[in-house]
């Protein structure tokens, strides 16, 4: 177990393409950090640099007290779970788990003790003598994690490990990974493009965009105080509504309504409102703005109403029994409105 420190880490490919720009990140011992962002944001590259599968072109990566830039993957004391599991198809599950230990010339008794222990934790004892091809997707996933935990490494690296599973299994395995990490207390870095996975698993989220960090924080911090319009739109489902508005003395004017912001700004502003942070109001209510309804999605517990405010797309989540006409008057929950700079997209206040 160890802390992982990234200092001004960057990656420039041979062709001059910059995949990762100067990342600073301190991951504490035992922490579960999730790197999240859209495809091409550099999250996998960053993880592979920590693993030693990609060279580090700028900055320093340290695991524990040791700078590992030039250290071979095998010597970094890390274990990685791959998206396609990368199980060795010609070896049984037992051989798959033992391979990394054997290569390190560990005693046979110790290998079998660790394999049995991992098998017990992951409930794969019954398949130890099967080949990966005879396992289901979920079982393969467990074997891949087993191969990581038998090593008892300083850190686990997960590269989108759940994206090859079906939706139901994904939710189940997500829970299992969370419990496993809590139980073992091993420092973990987890890469995903799924914001829900990121929210549910992380102690701390790192939102990446275009090879740069947009925001670092606990899931709730990031959800409640997104640092930019990018984070605001990326974290949370359904996504936060972003409206171009005009502000005067800290109040945004849009759709005939007035929405108070946290910062005393004047001029053009991007107003952010989560679909669940507005409630219907009577026509003529102080500050209410108008949503022209386009269509409705029934989700069971609630309904999602899509439409436009001043011609800009807007969605709101209402109780499933809410009555609807052609238009809705909406008021935001107190303090729920987010203001962002109209030019830079950075959070205001």
């Amino acid at each position, binding site marked *: 177990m160890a802390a992982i420190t990234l200092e001004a880490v960057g990656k420039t490919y041979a062709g001059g393409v910059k995949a990762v720009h100067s990342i600073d990140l301190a991951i504490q011992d035992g922490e579960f950090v999730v790197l999240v962002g859209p495809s091409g944001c550099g999250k996998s590259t960053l993880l592979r640099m920590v693993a030693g599968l990609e060279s580090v072109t700028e900055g320093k990566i340290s695991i524990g007290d040791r700078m590992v830039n030039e250290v071979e993957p095998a010597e970094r004391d890390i274990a990685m779970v791959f998206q*396609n599991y990368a199980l060795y198809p010609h070896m049984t599950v037992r051989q798959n788990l033992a391979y990394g230990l054997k*290569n*390190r010339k560990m005693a046979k008794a110790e290998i079998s003790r660790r394999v049995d222990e991992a098998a017990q934790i992951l409930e794969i004892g019954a398949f130890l003598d099967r080949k990966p091809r005879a396992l289901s997707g979920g079982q393969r996933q467990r074997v891949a994690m087993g191969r990581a935990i038998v090593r008892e490494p300083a850190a686990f690296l997960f590269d989108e490990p759940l994206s090859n599973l079906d939706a139901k299994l994904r939710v189940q395995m997500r829970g299992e990974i969370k419990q496993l990490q809590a139980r073992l207390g091993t420092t973990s870095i987890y890469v995903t493009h799924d914001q829900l996975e990121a929210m549910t698993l992380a102690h701390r989220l790192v939102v990446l965009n275009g090879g740069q960090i947009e925001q670092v924080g606990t899931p709730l911090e990031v959800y409640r105080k997104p640092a930019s319009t990018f984070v605001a739109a990326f974290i949370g489902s359904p996504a936060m509504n972003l409206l171009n508005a005009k502000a005067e003395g800290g109040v945004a004017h849009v759709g005939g309504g007035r929405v108070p912001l946290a910062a005393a700004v004047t001029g053009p502003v991007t107003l952010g409102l989560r679909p669940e942070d507005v409630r219907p109001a009577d026509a003529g209510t102080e500050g209410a703005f108008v949503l022209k309804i386009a269509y409705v999605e029934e989700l069971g517990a609630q309904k999602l109403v899509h439409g436009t405010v001043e011609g800009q797309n807007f969605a709101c989540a209402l109780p499933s029994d809410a009555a609807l006409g052609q238009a809705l008057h909406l008021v935001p929950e107190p303090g729920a409105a987010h203001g962002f700079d109209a030019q830079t997209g950075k959070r205001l206040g």
Partner: protein
Amino acid sequence: MKRIFFRNKILPYLLIAPQMVVTIIFFLWPAGEAVLQSFQREDAFGLHTTWVGLANYRALFQDPDYIHSLQVTVVFTIGVTAVALIVALLLALAVDRTIKAGPAYTTLLVWPYAVAPAVVGVLWWFLFNPTIGLMPYLLSLVGYHWNHALKGDDAMILVIISAAWPQVSYNFLFFVAGLQSIPGSMREAAAIDGAGPVKRFFTITLPLLSPTTFFLVVVNFVYAMFATFPVIDATTQGGPAGATNILVFKVYQDGFVGLNLGSSAAQSVVLLAIVIALTVIQFRFIERRVEY
């Protein structure tokens, strides 16, 4: 399985007819004739034919020349297969590691396969010609006097190289495809698991290539036993003193040069049986061992 139904009952037979005609005229008929002739004795002019039962076969296995030819064939076949597979695998590994210009190398390395077998033979014959060849000159610099016209071992090395060379291209293509179908993450996982490049090759890459390798072993065996006649004919003609007289060349020598048709036919039937047996054994082995 996709099944196609024809409304016309005759059309499907018409469609496969050309291929069937070729197969029957050029393969099944001569093969049948060979089997028939192997039980007969015929004079050199084809005027008298006598039924002799298994006499041709019995004579064959008592003939020291034939036993020698069998031994030569074993050495030759194993030599060609080993050289062609190992060289091809090394080249494929090199290309697999090359990020840039991989396709260009691949194209160049596949070229020898397009060279006519007789030309291949002549080419190597010139290269190794004791009087005018480049290789004997280079070898003489390190004190070795190459002469495949006199030394049996030299002749064997020459025919193995000549026969293996075009086959390297063929094997190389399959190995490249096989290597590219191994996911990169497999190698990365092994690297993280503490396996160095050599260990990775023997514990991960080679086992995952085994289906390709076994297929190529079968193909190369059959090639070396059956399809190497032009190479022998153009280089050593079985010599010196029968040192490179492999079964397929002896069939030709005894039948078409010596006009001992009965014995030649029996030899070709034995050769056919050997190849069929080897192929069956290897496919059994593949089914049991290679799957994963």
